[in-house]
C-alpha cells in the first residue's frame, strides 16, 4: 500500500468513524448512568429524518442539525418517561422505539415529500460543506506530514471536528463537573443519589437528554452534513456503499440510521419487518419467491388488481404516456405533479435494490400531459428474469397509456457521439440471445419488430430536440446482458455488425411493449465510450463531467416533447 492510498484510507476512516463515534458517546452517557440504550438506532433514525427534512425546508444545515437533536430528544424523553417514571423495561422500550422510529420516519417523509418515504437530496447551504483548515495548501509540499495534514486532517465537515471535540468535552463533564459526578453516581448506586437529596427521576431525565438524545442528534446532523456529498467522494467509499446496498436489499433492519449518514438521501423505506417489498413478482410458469405474501394468480389479474389500487391513490383519469427512467434522471420523476407510489407497495413490481435509483411509480401531470413515470427498472442481470418489467408494462397499458418512452444510459461506439450526448434509437440488436416472450403460449408471441421503434414518435422527439437546439443523432442499440462490461473485442465485433451504442437494458422492454401493443421510442444518454474506444484514463474523467450533461439534454427534449403533445 503506498502512502497516498494509506492517506485516503485514513481520510475515509475518519469520516466514517464520526457517526459511530457520536453514537458511542451517546451509549457512553447512558451506560454511565445505568441505562442500556438499545433504542439508539431509532433515535438516530429520527434525528436523521428531522435533520434531513428541516434542512431541506430551511435551507440551512445548522437549523437541520438542531432539528435532528430535537427529534432524538423527543424520543429520548419518551424512553426516559417510560423506563424511569413508569419503571418500564428499558430494553423493551428501546426495541419499541426502534420499531416506532423505523415506521414513523417513512410515514412522515412520505407525507411531507411523497418521494417514497425519503427526504429529498440536500444541496447548497442545506449541507455542511468541507472545512479546509488553515495552511492546508501551504503545508501540502512538506514531506509526510504535509499530505497527512492536507488530506486526512483537513477537509472534513465541521461535524467531524465537533465529534472529536465532544470526546474531550465528555471526559471533562464526567470527571470535573457536578453533573458528571451525579451522572456516574446514578449509574453506580441510584439510592446514594436519592438520599443525598437529588431527585433521581429528575436527574435521570436530564441524563437521558444529553446522553441518548444529544449524541444521537449529532448523528442526525452528520447526515445532513454529509448529504449527497459521499456519492462524489471517490472510490474509497464505494465498496461500502455497495455492501450497504446489499444489506439494504435484504431488508436489514438496524444499520439504517448509520447508513443514512453515509448515503445521499435517507432511504427509509426498508424495514425490519415484513413488507410488501418482499412480495414476489407474479411471473407465470415459475413459482416465484413468495416470502410472506405470496401471489399465485394470473399476471393479468394481478395487473388489474394493481390498477385498482393505483387508481385508489392517483385518481381514475387515464394516462397518455409512460416513461421508464434510466439512471441520473430522477429529477424528472420528482417534477411530476401527482403521487409517487413506492414499488414496495405494488405487489409484483421489481424489487429494485441498486441505490441511487428511485423505485417509485409517479403518476400525474408533467408539462400538462398525464404520464406514468417509472423511476427505476429491473435489469435482466439482477435476477436473470427478462420478463421483470412485464407486469409494470401491463399496468401501464391498463392505465390507458398508448405510448412508452424508454431512457437508458449507454456506452457509445461512435467517436462522433461522445459522452454527454443523447442518441435516439432507430433500431436495436438483441445480442443477449434472450427473449422475454419465451414461454408465452398464444400466437401473439410472434411480434413483428419492423419499426419496433415507432417512426412517428421518433419524429416528434427529433422535432423537440431541434426546437431545443440539441443535436439528436439516431443509432442502433445493442443489448448486452451484463452485468460484466463488454470486452474491447466484443465492441469491435458489435461495431462491425452495425451497432452504435451498447447497454444492458431497454430491448426486453421494447419487445414487451410491442407485445402489449404500445408504441415505443427510446433514447440513450451516452455516459462513456465503449471499451477500447478511447484512452481509459481520459475517458473516466470525461465521463464524470459529461454524463450529467446528457441527462440535462434528455430532460429538455422530453419536456419539449410533452409540451408539443399537450
Amino acid at each position, binding site marked *: 500500500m503506498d502512502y497516498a492510498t494509506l492517506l485516503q484510507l485514513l481520510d475515509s476512516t475518519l469520516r466514517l468513524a464520526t457517526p459511530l463515534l457520536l453514537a458511542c458517546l451517546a451509549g457512553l452517557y447512558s451506560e454511565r448512568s445505568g441505562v442500556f440504550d438499545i433504542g439508539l438506532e431509532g433515535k438516530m433514525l429520527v434525528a436523521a429524518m428531522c435533520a434531513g427534512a428541516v434542512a431541506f425546508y430551511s435551507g440551512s444545515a445548522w437549523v437541520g442539525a438542531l432539528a435532528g437533536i430535537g427529534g432524538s430528544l423527543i424520543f429520548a424523553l419518551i424512553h426516559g418517561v417510560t423506563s424511569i417514571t413508569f419503571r418500564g423495561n428499558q430494553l*423493551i422500550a428501546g*426495541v419499541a422505539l426502534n*420499531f416506532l422510529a423505523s415506521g*414513523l420516519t417513512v*410515514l412522515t417523509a412520505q407525507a411531507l415529500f411523497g418521494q417514497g418515504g425519503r427526504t429529498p437530496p440536500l444541496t447548497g447551504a442545506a449541507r455542511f460543506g468541507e472545512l479546509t483548515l488553515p495552511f492546508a495548501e501551504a503545508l501540502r509540499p512538506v514531506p509526510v506530514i504535509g499530505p497527512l495534514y492536507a488530506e486526512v486532517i483537513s477537509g472534513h465537515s465541521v461535524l467531524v471536528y465537533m465529534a472529536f471535540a465532544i470526546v474531550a468535552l465528555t471526559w471533562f463533564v464526567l470527571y470535573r463537573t457536578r453533573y458528571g459526578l451525579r451522572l456516574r453516581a446514578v449509574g453506580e448506586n441510584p439510592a446514594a443519589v436519592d438520599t443525598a437529596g437529588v431527585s433521581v427521576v429528575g436527574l435521570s431525565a436530564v441524563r437521558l437528554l444529553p446522553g441518548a438524545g444529544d449524541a444521537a442528534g449529532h448523528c442526525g446532523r452528520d447526515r445532513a452534513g454529509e448529504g449527497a456529498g459521499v456519492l462524489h467522494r471517490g472510490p474509497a467509499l464505494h465498496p461500502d456503499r455497495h455492501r450497504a446496498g446489499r444489506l439494504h436489499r435484504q431488508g436489514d433492519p*438496524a444499520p439504517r440510521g448509520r447508513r443514512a449518514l453515509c448515503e445521499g438521501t435517507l432511504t427509509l423505506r426498508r424495514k425490519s419487518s*415484513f413488507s410488501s417489498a418482499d412480495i414476489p413478482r407474479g411471473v407465470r410458469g415459475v413459482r416465484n419467491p413468495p416470502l410472506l405474501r*405470496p401471489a399465485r394468480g394470473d399476471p393479468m389479474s394481478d395487473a388489474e388488481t394493481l390498477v385498482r389500487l393505483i387508481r385508489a391513490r392517483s385518481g381514475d383519469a387515464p394516462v397518455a404516456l409512460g416513461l421508464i427512467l434510466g439512471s441520473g434522471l430522477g429529477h424528472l420523476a420528482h417534477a411530476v405533479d401527482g403521487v409517487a407510489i413506492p414499488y414496495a407497495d405494488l405487489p409484483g413490481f421489481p424489487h429494485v435494490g441498486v441505490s441511487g435509483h428511485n423505485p417509485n411509480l409517479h403518476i400525474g401531470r408533467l408539462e400538462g400531459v398525464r404520464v406514468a413515470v417509472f423511476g427505476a427498472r429491473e435489469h435482466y442481470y439482477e435476477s436473470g*428474469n427478462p420478463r421483470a418489467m412485464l407486469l409494470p408494462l401491463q399496468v401501464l397499458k391498463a392505465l390507458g397509456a398508448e405510448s412508452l418512452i424508454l431512457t437508458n444510459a449507454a456506452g457509445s461506439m461512435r467517436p462522433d457521439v461522445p459522452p454527454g450526448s443523447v442518441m435516439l434509437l432507430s433500431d436495436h440488436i438483441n445480442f443477449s440471445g434472450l427473449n422475454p416472450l419465451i414461454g408465452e403460449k398464444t400466437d401473439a408471441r410472434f411480434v413483428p419488430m419492423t419499426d419496433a421503434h415507432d417512426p412517428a414518435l421518433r419524429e416528434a422527439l427529433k422535432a423537440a430536440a431541434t426546437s431545443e437546439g440539441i443535436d439528436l443523432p439516431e443509432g442502433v442499440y445493442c443489448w448486452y446482458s451484463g452485468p460484466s462490461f463488454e470486452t474491447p473485442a466484443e465492441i469491435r465485433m458489435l461495431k462491425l455488425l452495425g451497432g452504435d451504442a451498447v447497454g444492458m437494458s431497454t430491448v426486453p422492454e421494447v419487445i414487451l411493449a410491442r407485445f402489449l401493443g404500445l408504441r415505443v421510442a427510446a433514447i440513450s444518454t451516452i455516459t462513456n465510450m465503449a471499451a477500447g474506444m478511447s484512452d481509459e484514463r481520459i475517458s473516466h474523467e470525461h465521463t464524470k463531467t459529461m454524463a450529467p450533461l446528457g441527462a440535462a439534454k434528455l430532460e429538455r427534449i422530453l419536456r419539449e416533447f410533452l409540451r408539443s403533445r399537450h
Partner: protein
Amino acid sequence: MGWGGRPPFILEGRLMDRLPRWADVALVPFVSLTLAAIISALVIVAIGQDPWEAITVMVKGSVMNAYGWGYTLYYATSFIFTGLAVTVAFHAGLFNIGGEGQAQLGGLGVALTLLFIPWPHWTIALVAASLGAALFGAAWAAIPAYLQAKRGSHIVITTIMFNYIAASLMIFMLVDVLRPPGKMDPATANFPPATHLPSFNEIPGLNAIFTSGVPANVTFFIALAMAVVVWLLLWRTRLGYQIRAFGKSEPAARYAGINPTKIIMIAMLISGGLAGLMAINNVMGEAERLLGNSASGAGFIGIAVALMGRNHPIGVVLAALLFGFLFQGGAELGLWTKIPIELRTVVQGLVILFTGALDMMVRMLLVRIFALFRTSRLEAA
C-alpha cells in the same frame, strides 16, 4: 401464639392494592391496545388520511373472509413459533432478541434437509425438516447461550450481533453456495414437489372454507401443538420448573442446586429451536425454496407477541393472531389506501411500547380508577 389473632393484613393489603385477576389478565392488555390504537389513529390523521377507512380496510382484508384468514393465520403461525421462542427464554430470565437470526438459520436447516435428501412423502419430509430447522435454530442460539453461561456476555448484545452474522451468513450461503448454477437469484433451487405441505385449501374439510389458494398450511397445527408442549414443559416438568426458578432468581437457583450453565444452555437451545421451527411455515410451507431474509422480521415480532401474551402459551397464541391480523391488515392498507405500509411498523412499535414497557402506567391508571370505584361504592353503602 402471639400473632395468632392477628389478621394477615399485610397479605390482604397487597392483594387489594393490586387489580382483580380478570383486570390483570384482560383489562390491562385491552387498555394498552386501545391506547396504541388511539395513537395510531392520530398518526393516520396526522399524515392526512382517514383512520376509520384504515380500520375498515384492515378488518375487511384480514378477518372478514376465508382468503384474508388464510393470510392472517399464516402470519400468526410464524409469530406463534417466535413468540414461544421468546417466552421460553424469558422464563429462564434471558431476553432472546436473536429469534430473527435463529429463524433464518432454521430456514437453512430446512433447505439442506429437503434439497439433498430425496423424501418419499411430505409427512416424513416434514418430520425431517422440522428436526433440521430446530437443530439449526438451536445451534445458532447455542453460541450466545454459551457466551452468557460461561463468559457472562450479555445475551441481549450477543443475540443481536448474531442476527447480523446470520444475515451475512445467509447472503453468503445463497449467493455463493446454494444458488443453482446459471441462476441470478440469491435463492436455492425449488424443493422437490414431494415435500409440498398441504395448504388450507388442499386439506380435505378445510378446503370447503378455503376455496382459493392461501399460504396458511398444516404448520399452523404444529404451532398450536408446540404451544401446548411449551405449556407442559414450563409448568408440568422438572426442567420447566428449574427454568422458571432460574429465571426468577439466579442466586436462589444456585442454592437449590440448579446448574445455571445447564439451564441457560437448555433454555436457549429450546428457544432457538422454536424460532428455527418457524422456517417450516414460511420456507417449507410457503416459499418452497430458501430466499434471503426469510424470517422477514418475524423474529422481532416474536418479542412483541411474547410480551403481549404475558409469556404464557395461550397468551402467545392470542397475541400471534392479533399480530397476524395487524400484518395482513397492514398489507391491505398498503394495497388499498394511500397509507404507506410502514404504518404497521408504527402500530407494532406502539403495541410493544404500551403492552411491554408502559404496562405499569396502565396498571397505575387502572388501580386509581378501581380505587375510585371502590370508594364511591363504599360511600353509597
